[in-house]
């Protein structure tokens, strides 16, 4: 079964690459502005265009791209003149670190709130109060929240740094590329606290928006399960209410909650483009937005394929998690 799933991934990659390839070339603008020095003659421009293969028809270019891509060669960036895979993968840990911390914040906030508001349904504080906050959270654009935090916490109160991952001058040995983890592994507490101060605002911004949605889903899923007969069975056995909720009910709600977390990972990747730009976070998202601006085709192509790959990987992982949560599910 796993083999069939893996084979199914191929057409997805083909489709994603084709769409990105075509859309990029349909968009106005020309990467040659990056490649050609100022004041070059028309002949010079054409020579460079030919050199980079940009004078060929789009289908031919796509075919060339595919041929090289299967060998792991995604070409050089027009702007940085470096292999795009190296360029992007260097910045990947920053994005992963931010995504994981946001997901952690979201989960830690959303699941308890969802559970409590379902158990205390219709209570003013625990249900209506938290759900109003959740509504506020879902309706707040993350970039706006980010900018507000920067203005208040970073600007006026001057409590937190407004951009970057680490203050210039602080030494940190890179092991995994996740600064928080690296600083713990090397027992470098100065770097740890500095990295924390840098990551907390962007992670909170992304976490809050996701938590709001996850809390609502957790609540409705818990309410659904709480009405099931087997919850009555658990109660009439004499189980303490805590066991009824956290064992019998939560385990059944987990499938829905996990699905939402999986979807949120997609949101995280897409959201990273905005949040990384707002907080000048040196991750893949901010690189992507620059690359789109410069029409650095190859960087965009590789990044989008990488996002697709991560998304597919996470969903595959989720399918395994489902089988562990619910014995009725078989891949």
């Amino acid at each position, binding site marked *: 079964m796993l083999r069939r799933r893996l084979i199914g991934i191929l057409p997805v990659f083909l489709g994603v690459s084709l769409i990105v390839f075509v859309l990029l070339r349909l968009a106005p603008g020309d990467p040659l502005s990056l490649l050609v020095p100022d004041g070059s003659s028309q002949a010079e421009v054409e020579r460079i265009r030919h050199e980079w293969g940009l004078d060929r028809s789009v289908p031919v270019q796509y075919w060339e791209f595919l041929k090289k891509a299967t060998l792991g060669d995604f070409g050089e960036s027009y702007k940085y003149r470096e292999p795009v895979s190296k360029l992007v993968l260097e910045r990947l840990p920053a994005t992963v670190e931010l995504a994981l911390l946001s997901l952690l914040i979201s989960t830690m906030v959303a699941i308890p709130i969802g559970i409590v508001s379902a158990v205390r349904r219709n209570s003013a504080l625990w249900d209506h109060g938290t759900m109003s906050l959740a509504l506020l959270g879902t309706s707040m654009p993350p970039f706006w929240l980010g900018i507000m935090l920067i203005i208040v916490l970073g600007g006026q109160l001057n409590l937190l740094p407004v951009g970057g991952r680490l203050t210039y001058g602080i030494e940190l040995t890179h092991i995994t590329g996740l600064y928080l983890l690296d600083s713990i592994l090397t027992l470098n507490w100065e770097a740890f606290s500095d990295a924390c101060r840098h990551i907390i605002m962007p992670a909170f911004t992304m976490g809050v928006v996701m938590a709001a949605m996850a809390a609502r889903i957790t609540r409705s899923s818990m309410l659904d399960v709480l009405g099931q007969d*087997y919850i*009555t069975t658990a109660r*009439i056995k*004499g*189980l303490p209410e805590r066991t009824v909720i956290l064992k*019998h009910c939560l385990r059944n709600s987990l499938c829905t909650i996990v699905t939402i977390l999986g979807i949120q990972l997609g949101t995280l990747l897409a959201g990273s483009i905005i949040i990384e730009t707002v907080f000048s976070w040196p991750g893949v998202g901010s690189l992507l937005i620059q690359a789109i601006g410069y029409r650095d085709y190859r960087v965009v192509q590789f990044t989008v394929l990488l996002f697709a790959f991560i998304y597919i990987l996470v969903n595959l992982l989720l399918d395994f998690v489902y089988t562990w949560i619910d014995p009725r599910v078989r891949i």
Partner: protein
Amino acid sequence: MEKLLEIVGLKTHFFLDNGVVPAIDGLDFWIGRGETVGVVGESGSGKSVTALSIMGVVPNPPGKTVEGEILFEGSDLLAYDAEQMRRIRGKEIAMILQDPMTSLNPVFTIGNQIAEVFMLHGGKSHPEAIEGAIEMLQVVGIPNPEKRVHEYPHQLSGGMRQRVMIAMALSCTPKLLIADEPTTALDVTIQAQTLALMASLKDRYKMAIMLITHNLGIVAEMCQRVVVMYAGKMMEEAEVESLFANPMHPYTRGLLRSLPGVDRKERRHQRLVAIPGIVPNLLNLPKGCRFSTRCEEHIGICKEEEPPLFARDRHRVRCWLMKD
């Protein structure tokens, strides 16, 4: 007979946005030690809510037991706090729900679900509790229990699942078993098997059974005494033979007339007689006797004043016709 459970003036109401629903509105009956009492009535008569009230698991909000006493071995369960009540539930009083397809948790093995009871009330370790679960599966007649104990509910048939529910309920040898329509969701042949199993286990464990059903055939077969409920109140109570031979309340007579008689020649070609009308809306009960709107024998006072319980020939009947 010694009273195991006695319900006195029980009222369980549901507080909804559009009014208060008196699902149980002053209920009195008792169950003796080792006795099987049938509770019959149409849907919405308050049978299941009575069971949930005894177990103390009426969904709250919106439901709440507002008045009365539930005396179990002489002490009032309604005065117990949550922790005391939890120790009664599943240990002293156990319950089987109606639909075995939905009353087992789909994500845990049946062994673990039975073992939970042993660990909770018997203080056993997990391996001991699984041993206990295997033993109980054997008792309720599930073949190959050592293997079945590790299976999930979806791997079992409906009849098997109800046996698992029975095994779970009887794990701590309760003194009272409340069975809420235990066979309604099962095939007819499986119904008979399940009832036979319950009857044999009742003798083995010497427990009392409160059997909630709308099937009078099951009552005749299983019970010593019957309580007939209508719209949240008890209408008639009598020993089984006496009730079937001499039903006194018009509602009881209506219920008996609406049974198809396959074995009785004289009735085979007759049309079934249905009780006209439907159960009244509990939000808007009629004045006087709550059955008066559907009763063909009602007299003047029936629509004026609610009848009390009259004692007649070892029956208790809530009907003005029984006055003097």
